[in-house]
């Protein structure tokens, strides 16, 4: 059933109010400190609404939303796992929720201790020597990591120019390297999706500062020649950055620090189950080997004779990268997740995530074509190759999935796979939920063969039908304008 919801601007009526305020006893007089040209008494078209108007509007919109609390959300490389409600109740404890970032730090020792313990936990999980919790997302973590590499090499008088990135990498990797002042060169993948070590040797040279590597890669395949890769880069004086977006697959099994990785970011909103919340806030802590420790961002949490405090006195630091102390509420939830699961629980998370992805691959492989034949870990990528003759594309499949109540997988990424459908079920899904998803996918395959027009015009059961993505991108309408203005 197609539905629509008017904008707040369209449902108000002049004079309608939500809250009746008492009369102002006297008009403020004198200079408010705001220049006259910026003061206004009327806002053209400003909506006037009652409380029930507003509550109904937003409640109706919320029912159109999709969320991991409503169903499986297999968005590949995003690790859309369920966020346990215990995290929320602990985050609302007054000692955390009512802390202000400007209160004297000596009055919030519990918060500082929690940050310190989270740093230690992330070190233990990843095998890195030190962590900063400041970056607010994976991409900012990449930028912070590359900035530290740049500071480290510059100080040694070995300023290098180039960063190598495999062609299957997340799109943020080249952007972060460029922002940190590097030129990016692409390293091709071998047919099974892993780094082509021969090509890597060819690209490596005295001007290469670092290799940015995602492991397991965006096809879900573990870089089983990681030790050789590290040897090639380290042998030529470069450093290796690991994008930890896919860390869920490695929990309790592989510690990147043990393989020799120099810098690693983790996405707490992926691996450690904090909300993705419509794009933010997230947290992208960065771990480093000891040689890079002097360059970590400030402030850093330290413990001295006067207890817990924040320290800014690190002359080689790349400086501040975030207001105050990072996204503390996100750090807190990740800490609760780690402490409530423990080492054994985290290992099970990794195992179950891999098992669930492999189960999807096993059940779907007869009807959908896997992008690679090698064993994958936490996510599986299919191409739409076997649908070409039917005239059905990845976009049609993704749109039709909405009718079955599933958020679609990541589509058209990685770019190395034509018509990619990239699925990451996470450890949170039961066998029944996975089977329901597989049934929907098999139904879609059946429709592609017998009634492809159902797919071409999907979705049918969502509040709005197929949107014109081309027009939206070419002629975006990003704001409301009063029809009378």
């Amino acid at each position: 059933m197609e539905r629509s919801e008017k904008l707040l601007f369209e449902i108000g009526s002049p004079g309608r109010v939500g809250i009746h305020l008492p009369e102002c006893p006297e008009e403020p007089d004198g200079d408010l400190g705001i220049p006259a040209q910026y003061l206004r008494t009327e806002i053209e078209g400003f909506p006037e609404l009652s409380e029930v108007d507003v509550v109904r509007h937003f409640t109706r919109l919320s029912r159109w939303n999709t969320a991991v609390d409503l169903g499986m959300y297999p968005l590949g490389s995003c690790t859309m796992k369920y966020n346990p409600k215990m995290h929320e109740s602990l985050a609302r404890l007054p000692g955390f929720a009512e802390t202000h970032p400007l209160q004297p730090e000596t009055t919030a020792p519990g918060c500082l201790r929690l940050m310190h313990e989270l740093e230690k936990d992330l070190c233990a999980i990843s095998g890195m020597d030190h962590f900063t919790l400041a970056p607010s997302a994976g991409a900012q973590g990449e930028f912070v990591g590359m900035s530290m590499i740049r500071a480290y090499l510059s100080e040694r008088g070995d300023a290098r120019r180039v960063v190598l990135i495999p062609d299957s990498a997340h799109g943020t990797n080249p952007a972060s390297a460029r922002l940190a002042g590097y030129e990016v060169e692409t390293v091709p993948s071998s047919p099974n999706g892993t780094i082509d070590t021969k090509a890597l040797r060819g690209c490596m040279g005295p001007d290469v500062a670092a290799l940015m590597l995602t492991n397991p890669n965006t096809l879900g395949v573990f870089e089983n020649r990681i030790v050789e890769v590290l040897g090639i880069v380290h042998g030529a004086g470069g450093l290796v950055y690991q994008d930890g977006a896919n860390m869920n697959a490695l929990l309790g099994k592989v510690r990147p620090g043990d393989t020799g990785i120099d810098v690693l970011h983790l996405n707490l909103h992926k691996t450690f189950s904090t909300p993705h919340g419509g794009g933010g806030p997230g947290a992208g802590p960065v771990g480093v080997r000891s040689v890079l420790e002097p360059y970590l961002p400030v402030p850093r949490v330290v413990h001295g004779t006067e207890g817990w405090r924040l320290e800014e006195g690190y002359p080689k630091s790349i400086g501040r990268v975030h207001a105050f102390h990072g996204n503390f509420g996100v750090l807190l939830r990740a800490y609760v997740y780690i402490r409530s699961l423990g080492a054994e629980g985290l290992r099970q998370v990794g195992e179950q995530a891999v098992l669930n992805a492999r189960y999807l691959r096993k059940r779907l492989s007869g009807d959908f074509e896997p992008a690679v034949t090698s064993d994958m870990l936490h996510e599986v990528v299919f191409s739409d190759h076997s649908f070409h003759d039917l005239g059905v594309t990845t976009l049609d499949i993704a749109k039709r999935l909405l009718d079955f109540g599933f958020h679609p997988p990541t589509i058209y990424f990685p770019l190395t796979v034509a018509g990619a459908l990239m699925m990451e079920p996470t450890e949170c899904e039961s066998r029944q939920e996975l089977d329901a998803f597989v049934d929907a996918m098999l139904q879609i395959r059946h429709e592609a063969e017998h009634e492809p027009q159902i797919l071409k015009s999907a979705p049918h059961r969502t509040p709005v039908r197929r949107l014109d993505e081309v027009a939206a991108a070419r002629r975006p309408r990003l704001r409301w304008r009063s029809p009378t203005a």
Partner: protein
Amino acid sequence: MIDPDNLKYTRDHEWIALEGEVGTIGITDFAQKELGDIVFVELMQAGTVVTAGKEMGTVESVKAVSEVYSPVNGTLEESNGDLSSKPELINQDPYGRGWMVRVRLSDPAQVARLMDQSSYEAYLKQEASGQ
């Protein structure tokens, strides 16, 4: 304007048509079909020095953002201003009104090392079977 027999192709799916020392460059019909509906084009400014195999612009479709690489070394003389308001020209007419830039080549002999039409078609077949 562009003589199809005179086109040369890269493995990254750009074409170049050489007239004297100036080459007109665009992306191939195969490339525009793979990308899907193009919604945004960004090209380097006139006067920019471009290098064979290095980025000279980006095209964004509803599926992805892709880099466009220069087939040759030279200096960018002109970019197709129509593409900023009508990026769909690349989908509609990739070898004509969808041209992207004109480059003055520093070494026109470079063009001879690119693929001609029949080798490009063979390359596409080979790529398709590899998938």
